């Protein structure tokens, strides 16, 4: 189908806009998730959002689709899970804390949805989502979230950079790492809540991890990392929707598979560069005339 034909169908146009906005949000957040080793926490929050959506959808606002109120309740629930993870991390290993919280919230969600006779079909819906069911409400929320995430990154850029390198050093340099950690978790919670209905729990986690991982393979500076991550995410979203439009593959999996294909290409190009080029150079790093691979002699201080 041509672009004109694609845009003639309102639901397809909404799917494209929602996919691109979600890709921008995930692309902007992904580098920090990867650099701070929060991939499992992001995945855990995505799963925990099922509990929140179940509470919001079934107990607060009965109906086929979540309303703004049920989204808000779901967001509060997921934020509570994030705070629970932060609290349990003081007593347990961090991965165990994530695991404990997310399986409990996930189980609660499945239990509520099943007990309300909505059947496992609904659980499958939140697991895999459907981009074609994106409504103006989700697009509006994604638009606001995109603006808010961009604003947060601009305001906290320097602190985030220091935090990704070393938490204790950043704290010593006056960066409020606790605020950054809580803030990032809140943004991830908002993203997974809005995205769950569109691409599903499983795939939003992938979108929060894959673009940043690709950026880490290709970029040598923080801003190029974020640009690469966002670009890859948006490219994968557009390509995934196009592939989905031409085949029977649902849009969510198609988007993630496109991003995974880019990751494979990035890995291969990095390996080729190591084998045949400068082993320390990255594709998106600034070129330095002759950086030595190692420093054989300790340089003289002036």
């Amino acid at each position, binding site marked *: 189908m041509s672009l004109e034909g694609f845009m003639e169908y309102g639901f397809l146009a909404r799917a494209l806009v929602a996919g691109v906005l979600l890709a921008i949000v995930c692309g902007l957040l992904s580098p920090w998730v990867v650099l701070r080793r929060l991939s499992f926490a992001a995945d855990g929050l995505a799963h925990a959002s099922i509990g929140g959506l179940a509470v919001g959808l079934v107990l607060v606002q009965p109906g086929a689709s979540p309303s703004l109120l049920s989204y808000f309740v779901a967001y509060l629930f997921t934020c509570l899970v994030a705070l629970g993870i932060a609290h349990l991390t003081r007593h347990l290993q961090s991965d165990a804390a994530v695991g404990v919280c997310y399986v409990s919230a996930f189980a609660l969600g499945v239990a509520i949805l099943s007990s309300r006779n909505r059947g496992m079909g609904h659980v499958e819906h939140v697991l895999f989502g459907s981009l074609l069911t994106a409504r103006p409400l989700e697009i509006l929320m994604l638009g606001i979230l995109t603006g808010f995430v961009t604003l947060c990154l601009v305001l906290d850029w320097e602190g985030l*950079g*220091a935090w990704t*390198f070393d938490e204790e050093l950043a*704290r010593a340099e006056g960066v409020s790492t606790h605020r950054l950690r809580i803030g990032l978790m809140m943004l991830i919670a908002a993203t997974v809540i809005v995205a769950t209905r569109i691409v599903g729990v499983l795939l939003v986690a992938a979108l929060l991890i894959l673009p940043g991982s690709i950026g880490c393979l290709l970029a040598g500076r923080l801003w190029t*990392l974020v640009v690469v991550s966002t670009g890859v995410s948006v490219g994968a979203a557009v390509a995934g929707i196009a592939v989905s439009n031409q085949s029977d593959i649902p849009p969510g999996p198609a988007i993630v598979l496109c991003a995974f294909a880019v990751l494979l290409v990035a890995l291969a190009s990095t390996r080729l560069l190591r084998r045949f080029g400068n082993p*320390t150079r990255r594709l998106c*790093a600034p070129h*330095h005339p002759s950086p030595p691979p190692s420093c054989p002699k300790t340089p*003289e201080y002036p």
Partner: protein
Amino acid sequence: MHRHDCIVLKVTDLTVHLGGREILSGIDFTVRSGEFLGLIGPNGGGKTTLLRALLGVVPAAPGQITWSPGEGRPTRIGYVPQRTATDPTYPLSARAVLLQGATRHGDGPPEGRHAQRERANTLMERVGLHRQAGLPFVHLSGGQQRRLLLARALLRTPDALLLDEPTTGVDVEGQEQFCALLQQLGAEGITVILVSHDLPLITSRADRIACLNRTLHWHGRAKDLDPTKIRHAYACELRRYEISQPEGSCAEEPR
């Protein structure tokens, strides 16, 4: 910058509890501007905790730690940690890691990007890493990483530098050059507080020494330090150590 020889740090009856345990108690000392203070003591003696308390990362009661303001603004403190918890696949270049240290001070207008880069280049040259600027940070050797972290601390134009065992794992020549650079910084008026286990190195370079083991066992001029005081702080006999190091021979193996 503080006026040379004025008191820049005053620690009064500092007590630190962590996890219900008393790590430090009754610590009293002062440090003057441009002074090179060496902190020695056994493992678990609270040296790193003291540095963290001085940085404000570990809570201390009000009035126990007083940094004197310099030229009408809060004292800027640079910190070089013992090691960084950086992932081996951390992708950013040495220059990018250095520039991360240029966080806003909050005591003046933010510095422009161009000026920051110029200063970063100058500092890279000063620590001898200008040719490694484009390499990923994790590709640098341990000694190069410490020097880069020193440059990162200097990017904040600090009044005081706190260094936690920066010469551990660095070869003798590297240690010597590192300490020479610290002495240069002291001459420029930057106060240096260095934690180290290398007694010959620290006694030959530092102006004053503080022996710490949960509490301050001794604090005085480096030349007044003798094996009795060290034995008292370490609570054991240090047979390989003698205080009579010839001037400027810190690179030699301890006898």
